[in-house]
């Protein structure tokens, strides 16, 4: 009688010990990877892959080659919106109410001829329409039809100075802590034929959830680069003194500045 019960006990003890060891090993692993994820040295080593991705992917891509454009029947029924909520300011609400009649896009920075453009002026410039796939960093994809003015047209208008390296987008939305959303792209992407400032989605004025009145489309990068609620464009040589210094709201929060992957 005592032997089977001893056996059972031993078995129970062994199983419990095994469970304990496994749990300890797993939580140990978890803690190790968590602390490595918080170590700046480790992170700077891991982040070196971003430069490799940018250089290699750029090298593999013919300059100005287009992202795939889809047909009307491919358009998703709902264009999912993500990110920070629309700007909740009186100015924004008033702007949305009167179809952005008083809204202006300021284009400034290292330019020879700063500009201040209304939505009607932007709409009267040469436009481009494209049906493209929008890929969120989270993993989902939607297809939408965009109409807007090519960013290169705006750059031609303001004539950037030779030292300009980046185009910075200042946005009207803020997060819960009051940080302003901003984004930046380099000149290679800025003059790409499909890089547009969109004011229409699926043949209708850009909805508030999708960035009214004006948003960026940079089709060779993930969704978080596509700045919404743009109020100003600034041409700079370096973005180190802007925001957290990493070039965009999301880059300041650990995401890659180069979102081609």
């Amino acid at each position, binding site marked *: 009688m005592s032997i089977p019960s001893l056996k059972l006990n031993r078995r129970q003890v062994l199983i419990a010990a095994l469970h304990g060891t496994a749990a300890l090993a797993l939580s140990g692993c978890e803690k190790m990877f968590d602390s490595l994820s918080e170590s700046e040295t480790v992170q700077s080593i*891991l982040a070196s892959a*971003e430069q490799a991705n940018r250089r290699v992917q750029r090298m593999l891509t013919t300059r100005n080659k287009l992202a795939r454009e889809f047909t009307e029947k491919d358009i998703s029924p709902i264009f999912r919106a993500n990110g920070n909520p629309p700007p909740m300011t009186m100015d924004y609400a008033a702007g949305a109410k009167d179809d952005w009649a008083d809204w202006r896009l300021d284009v400034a920075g290292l330019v020879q001829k700063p500009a201040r453009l209304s939505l009607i002026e932007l709409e009267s410039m040469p436009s481009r329409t494209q049906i493209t796939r929008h890929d969120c960093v989270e*993993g989902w994809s939607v297809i939408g039809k965009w109409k807007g003015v090519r960013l290169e047209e705006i750059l031609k208008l303001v004539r950037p100075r030779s030292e300009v390296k980046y185009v910075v987008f200042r946005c009207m939305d803020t997060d819960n802590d009051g940080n302003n959303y901003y984004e930046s792209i380099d000149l290679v992407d800025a003059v790409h034929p499909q890089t547009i400032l969109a004011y229409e989605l699926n043949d209708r004025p850009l909805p508030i959830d999708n960035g009214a009145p004006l948003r960026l489309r940079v089709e060779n990068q993930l969704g978080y680069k596509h700045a919404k609620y743009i109020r100003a464009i600034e041409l700079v040589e370096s973005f180190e003194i802007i925001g957290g210094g990493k070039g965009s709201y999301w880059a300041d929060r*650990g*995401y890659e500045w180069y979102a081609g*992957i």
Partner: protein
Amino acid sequence: MNVPDEPLDLVYRHNRVTRLTHWLNALALLILFMSGLQIFNAHPHLYWGNTSEPDKAFFSIGTANDDGELRGYLQLYGRQIDTTGYLGVQQRDVAPSARAFPSWLTIPGYYSLAGARRWHFFFGWLFALNGLLYILFNFASGHLRKFFLTLSDAKKVHSMVAYYLRLRKQSPQDGEYNPLQKMAYTGVFVVLTPVVLLSGMAMSPQLNVAFNWLPAVLGGRQSARAMHFILAFGFLFFVFGHVFMVLTQGFFNNMRSMTTGWYKEKVQIKKETPRAVREIRPDIAKALREEAPPAQEKIDAPGEAQGGGETVPHPIPTNSPDARPVIALRSEQEKEKDVDPKS
């Protein structure tokens, strides 16, 4: 084992590059798998096609709220399984937390899509470059040929399965690797690895511009994402099988061969004394020639002094006088029972 566990033949099985790339690969696969699960957690649904229409997911790991109580579930083509405690909900110190894969399976453990991506892309490069080094080196040295599945191997796969299931007495193995191993390794090399790399690349918007055929051949970007996820579990399946074989087919012998390179053969295979042994350890080679196995302690200390040409030469015809240096000690019957497949 019916035969005394005496050393029959000591072969230098894994060259330095193979050993190094093996362990780097193991580390890369572990981190890629776990950081990949964290990335999946950001949107725990899979779809076929180009887009992810919310009602069209064929696979989801989700969290339901039943009157304040969180319940985890896995859903596949409309069928739901309760997975509370494993997937969808994890018990944390403070409160149950809604997440597809639990923290101990993800890197980082805490929710961080940005952090997981950083791990994933760094080790993605390591995995690819490490694999390239392995293939170039071992292709040049002829090592790859030893476990590449040929048509005649493919015909023997079913008899190898029968042998493992004890339905067949004799193993159909006639090289260093048995037909089933060859099939597994060849599958990993020509199917799993290329498709996992391509489906990963097909998710990159910039590479979609560079190679717009890439998501198309895989059926669209969301299909590529689904395949990438499924193939990751293909690797997990392979690793489980691999580790199981290592554990059951002579753990220490296998670990020694993957750390020092030296493996103690228990099954006689058609080949001459390894060149590495002939050149570096003439004492062992001599002992082998004299059909008298060397003493154990000599075998366990082969050292790291080998030069090039470390791989085992190709099998030579059985009628060669060198072909059966040791086997004369053993009966045909013993041979059959003592096949020792490696992982």
